[in-house]
């Protein structure tokens, strides 16, 4: 399995750390070339993509983007203590959510199961809104888009609208 993982993530030199992603350290390597600074916005304006301005406040978080071999782009939003508080994705395959949601994955699956039972939700797009975890997963086969974040771990001044 490890050999398959290493071959699959050809653009990623290292195997995933043991405890990674949401609520912990980033899953994918964070380099200068794939990272941009995010500014805390006062009224949910767009994330600052470039940390060039010397007058900008020190970045509240950084956004690290990785492109998987399938072409799916995963963005990890990294806050204080090198902890991922949000992630988003867009591309031909779903990102490996079991790895990326880490400790939050079981409660995510439980929420989907509860929604399936109670509301008759299907297997496609879904919205999970809990106090500790929000996941919006959309799109369809070949074209997925979604995001996940920890409402209680958003840096000060950062809102859900900044997670794109």
């Amino acid at each position, binding site marked *: *399995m490890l050999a*398959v*993982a290493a*071959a*699959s*993530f050809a653009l990623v030199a290292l195997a995933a750390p043991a405890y990674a992603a949401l609520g912990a350290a980033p899953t994918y390597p964070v380099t200068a070339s794939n990272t941009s600074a995010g500014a805390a916005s006062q009224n949910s304006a767009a994330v600052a993509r470039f940390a060039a301005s010397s007058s900008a406040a020190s970045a509240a978080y950084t956004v690290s983007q990785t492109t998987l*071999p*399938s*072409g799916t782009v995963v963005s990890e939003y990294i806050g204080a203590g090198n902890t991922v508080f949000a992630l988003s994705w*867009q591309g*031909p*395959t*779903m*990102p*490996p*959510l*079991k*790895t990326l949601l880490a400790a939050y994955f079981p409660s*995510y*699956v439980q929420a*989907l*199961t509860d*929604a*399936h*039972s109670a*509301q*008759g*939700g*299907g*297997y*496609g*797009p*879904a*919205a999970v*809104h809990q106090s500790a975890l929000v996941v*919006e*997963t*959309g*799109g*369809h*086969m*070949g*074209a*997925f*888009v*979604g*995001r996940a974040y920890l409402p209680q771990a958003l840096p000060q001044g950062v809102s859900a609208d900044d997670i*794109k």
Partner: protein
Amino acid sequence: MRKIARIIAAALGLGLALGLAGCGGGGGGSSSNSTANAPTNAPAAASAPAGPGGTTSNPSTGNSSSNALAVDASAVPTPVGPGNTMLVTVSGTGIHNQPMVSVKLCAPGSNASTSCTTIPNVIVDTASFGLRLVRSAIPTSTFNALTAETDQSSGLPLAECALFGSGYAWGSVHLADIGLSSEVAASVPIQVIGDSALTIAAPSECQVGRPLAAASDLGANGILGIGVSPVDCGSQCALTVLSQFYYTNAGNAVSVPVSKQISNPVARFAQDNNGVILEMAQVSDSGSATAQGTLVFGIDTQANNVLNGTGAPIFRTDLNGDFTSSYGGTTFTQTFFDSGSTVMFFPDTTIPRDTSSGYYIPTATVGRTSTLIGTNPASVSLGFNIANGATLTSSGNNAFNNLGIYMTRQFDFGLPFFYGRHVYYGISGRASSGGGTGPYVAYVSS
């Protein structure tokens, strides 16, 4: 869960008693005479009701939207008969707004005549590609006739994980003849979900949500993916070993030639193979217990599947069926018509919603307009309505034309959009006189 299991058991054992009314009925309801005098939706924060189990988000007052209700679409499905048409039903399968057909499954290469079985309650999914059936729904005598596909280099049986937004299906790959109406798709690779012969667990990178292994997980016996792509991966999986697609039954990712990938059965018909049309009869604006429609094979190949000359707007899509729309000042490059989505999924902060479930719950039904970016014409206004999702989902009905959930970064016209419309899907690389060469989508509303 018990309700779902009971309904599935009944459906599997007895089939559904279906009234073949042919022409769709059940329309009507509050079709509004929308005029310029219709009041704008002034958000009344105090009166917005709290949804079940969650708080209500009151709409922002920043940009007011006209509340003029859209006129319900009113196209009538073409009659079902032998040839290129199949009956589609929405009913109490435990999942609302899931359109179902029956699929005939036979030994590969038998012209759909040997070891056949008919499998009911298969979801019509216009945004996925390939036939996927739960193992338990296939009688063993038929299953034993479905040749297992093998990896070309190791000779091991193939497996595949199919990824969906909130679930994944892990299964083996087999060849089968598929009979849909009088059409036959010969020796088509299909996915058999929950195949107990596949003893290894789904790879970790495939586990993206709920495991879909049994009929109760799906609320159905399978998924009939008949979107614009002929196969579920394409050249990427043929040229490279790509994670999250095909594996041996030992769990090692492998490449698979396009001809051996799980296929959209329509693309493998001998005729009527350039696309499909899904035509659902309109339902009540307060929901209907059941709904019926027709799945038509082929575009501009028969008298009953005409696109040419209808004036339908044509939208060129990417290889997966997506095109672009504009809504509320935002551009959505992931806009799509998806019969496999049970509701409309789109972002609108001006409509009150239950922040826990995501359902829009306006006090009174609201009207909205999306601008679709097309080929001919270049821009199309599409009106739709959103009603109170809490009221609808507790009504006991199963078919809804105005149910929506808040979701960002995409505009998913789910099954609510299909009622009262003929929605066309042109398969990539296949041409019709009215649509040109696919991939494209189109629709008529009357």
